[in-house]
């Protein structure tokens, strides 16, 4: 929604060249990026404001034409140091007149009046005036901050009136764009899963190429705002903190299609990941953090820092994982990369698949003797539903035990039905051919024992049981698995205690089963 409004605002005056990477020397790019994990007294500690800032600076330097000499990164600094940095940039701009671009980024605490740079404050009004006064043709101010928040690691701050950018439409603001991570009194959120602020994460991903809507290899300010706004809203829609709507105010004097990055360019020190197969992608760095998440039609190119990545692609109810390496200046192509299928249950537990996965398995089973009735051998048929937090399994078993002692022989059939609840743990990564899942839980069941003695007499009894169970499943491919069951069922066993009387005794046993199954 916001993106469409943004796009409606733009007018094309063909000034791209003046601010592109290939721009004349007179059009330089300056950036001040400020990150501060600490706020004032009541502000919660932020985890990712400073790391977001460092990563964005690296990305802008590599892909955006912001040279390292003209890029200032301020981490955990005070308001005074920010003021000094702004003044220094202003001096440098005045010294080299031209159609320069200045980008100021802030990630940290704020309230309706000021940025919270640790214990110090930088009034928003002063920030607006200072940035507006910078002697550049275009000034871009990006604020990833919010009012307050507690849940889902929101960026903290004191509750207050809405965080609206009060930007008067006067001459001083010509050529000024302001992007804010949230609107009104919303909270800007950090994500443990992303290891980043939600807004900045999508800003970076968009600048890395996924925002390149027209596939021209460049990401414009309009494109990246649309992308960031849409994805930030989508990612925060289901959070307990509530949806986060990025907002903007801009007056770019027709320079709205300003190119911020050129992810398609070679020689930037980045490599490329070509998402040439349609699907829903998760791209993870080696440390497990999410580098990108996108739904691709099969024509996206993502610029990435060189290094190893795990790429998960989901399409319908299938999930594939590939491990690949992105090299400096090289392109990794999904269709040319070996991938490994991920089992359905693992998909569900990772939250990357359907709500539930189902499995059927058949196993040969043995159980230690109950009351010296002999080792029971038979088969178990299991049907399981894998949900994200737990799995439920129904088990039907049939076993036969034979016992021969000096004075008694008997054959005992055991027909059982049980329900188990399991907590599954996916062990290790998905390898080329297989993956291992362990599960622990408890089962409760009912066993009907029919014993035939050597004199031909028969006796039958219902015997409830319960106990802990463990399960190990080795998945082969996407649908098939081998499984090993272990359990310690404790039976409320009907036992003949005298010649003609029967009582109930608690009797433990050890059960195991080895089998195979399929999931769907």
């Amino acid at each position: 929604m916001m993106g469409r409004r943004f796009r409606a605002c733009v007018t094309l005056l063909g000034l791209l060249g003046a601010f592109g990477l290939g721009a004349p020397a007179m059009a330089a790019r300056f950036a001040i990026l400020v990150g501060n994990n600490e706020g004032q007294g009541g502000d919660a500690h932020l985890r990712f404001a400073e790391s977001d800032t460092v990563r964005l600076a690296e990305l802008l330097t590599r892909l955006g034409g912001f040279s390292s000499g003209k890029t200032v990164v301020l981490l955990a600094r005070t308001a005074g140091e920010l003021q000094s940095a702004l003044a220094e940039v202003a001096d440098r701009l005045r010294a080299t007149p031209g159609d320069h671009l200045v980008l100021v980024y802030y990630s940290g605490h704020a309230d309706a009046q000021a940025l919270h740079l640790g214990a110090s404050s930088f009034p928003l009004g002063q920030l607006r005036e200072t940035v507006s006064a910078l002697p550049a043709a275009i000034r871009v101010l990006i604020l990833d901050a919010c009012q307050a928040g507690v849940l889902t690691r929101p960026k903290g701050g004191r509750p207050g009136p809405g965080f609206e950018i009060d930007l008067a439409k006067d001459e001083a603001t010509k050529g000024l764009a302001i992007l804010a991570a949230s609107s009104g009194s919303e909270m800007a959120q950090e994500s443990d899963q992303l290891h980043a602020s939600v807004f900045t994460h999508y800003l970076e991903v968009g600048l890395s190429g996924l925002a390149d809507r027209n596939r021209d290899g460049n990401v414009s300010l309009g494109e990246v705002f649309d992308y960031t706004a849409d994805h930030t809203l989508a990612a925060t829609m289901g959070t307990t903190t509530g949806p986060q709507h990025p907002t903007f105010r801009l007056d770019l004097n027709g320079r709205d299609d300003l190119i911020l990055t050129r992810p398609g360019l070679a020689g930037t020190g980045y490599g490329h990941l070509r998402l040439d197969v349609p699907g829903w992608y998760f791209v993870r760095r080696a440390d497990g953090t999410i580098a990108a998440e996108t739904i691709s039609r099969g024509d996206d190119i993502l610029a990435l820092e060189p290094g190893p990545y795990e790429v998960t692609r989901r399409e319908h109810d299938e999930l594939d994982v590939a491990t690949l390496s992105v090299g400096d200046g090289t392109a990794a192509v999904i269709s040319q990369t070996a991938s490994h299928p991920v089992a359905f249950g693992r998909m569900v537990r990772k939250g990357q698949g359907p709500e539930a996965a189902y499995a059927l398995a058949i196993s040969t089973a043995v159980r230690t003797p109950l009351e010296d009735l002999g080792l029971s051998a038979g088969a178990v048929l299991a049907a399981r539903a894998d949900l994200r937090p737990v799995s439920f399994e129904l088990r039907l078993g049939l076993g036969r035990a034979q016992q021969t002692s000096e004075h008694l022989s008997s054959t005992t059939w055991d027909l059982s039905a049980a329900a188990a609840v399991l907590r599954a743990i996916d062990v290790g990564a998905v390898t080329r051919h297989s993956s291992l899942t362990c599960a622990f839980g408890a089962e409760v069941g009912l066993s009907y024992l029919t014993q035939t003695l050597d004199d031909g007499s028969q006796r039958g009894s219902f015997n409830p049981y319960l106990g802990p169970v463990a399960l190990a499943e080795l998945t082969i491919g996407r649908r098939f698995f081998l499984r090993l069951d272990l359990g310690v069922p404790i039976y409320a066993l009907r036992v003949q205690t005298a010649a003609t009387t029967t009582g109930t005794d608690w009797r433990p046993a050890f059960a195991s089963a080895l089998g195979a199954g399929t999931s769907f």
Partner: protein
Amino acid sequence: MKGQAVLFGLLIAGAGASCGRGVVPGATYDQPLLSFSGTINPTGGLGQAQHPIVGLLWTDPLQRSADVTMPARWLQSTVDAAADTFTVDIFRPPPPEAVVDLADPSGKLLQRLAMAEIVIVDDSDGDGGFLVKGPRATISGSERYLAGSANVLTYVESPFSSPQINSPLTLPAQIGYALVNYNCQGQLSAGTNPVNPQKVEMILQPSQDFPDVRTCRASHGP
């Protein structure tokens, strides 16, 4: 505490939910239910026997069903022909078909019991058992009766509901095995009395085909 309460509740519910005739544990009959021993009179009568064994011949006191022999694995016996003594260990209740119902004229069940003659058989084929046929428990095959006891082995599965009612066949209120002596006065029984399990007396069989050694309550299958 809550988890323990739930577990306790499950255990109680589980115990309550179990029902039916319980299994017979495999080790149930590892120990004898009854052991007895005694002497054989007159002495020296078993001198020619090849494999003398003690056997039990279950018989219906009301002569409604055929006689049943105790399976060989269900008891163990030793017969010392030289010393004229024997020992018996019984490990199992009687075969189900040997247990008979005694009912009053209205059909109400009064007692479930079994009754066995104690005999010594020459187990010539060495299989530990013997077979009978016919209305008088005629021994079949190559085995032959050597001796029998005037005492009777009884097994009460379900006693009289009222202890005041004494069975003419068994000792009162007695569940399981018992050795009973019928005080025979000719063909009539003048009552019962218990037998010392270490002093069971066998007497040499007048017939090698039929088991009868007692003048009263000699009942065999129809």
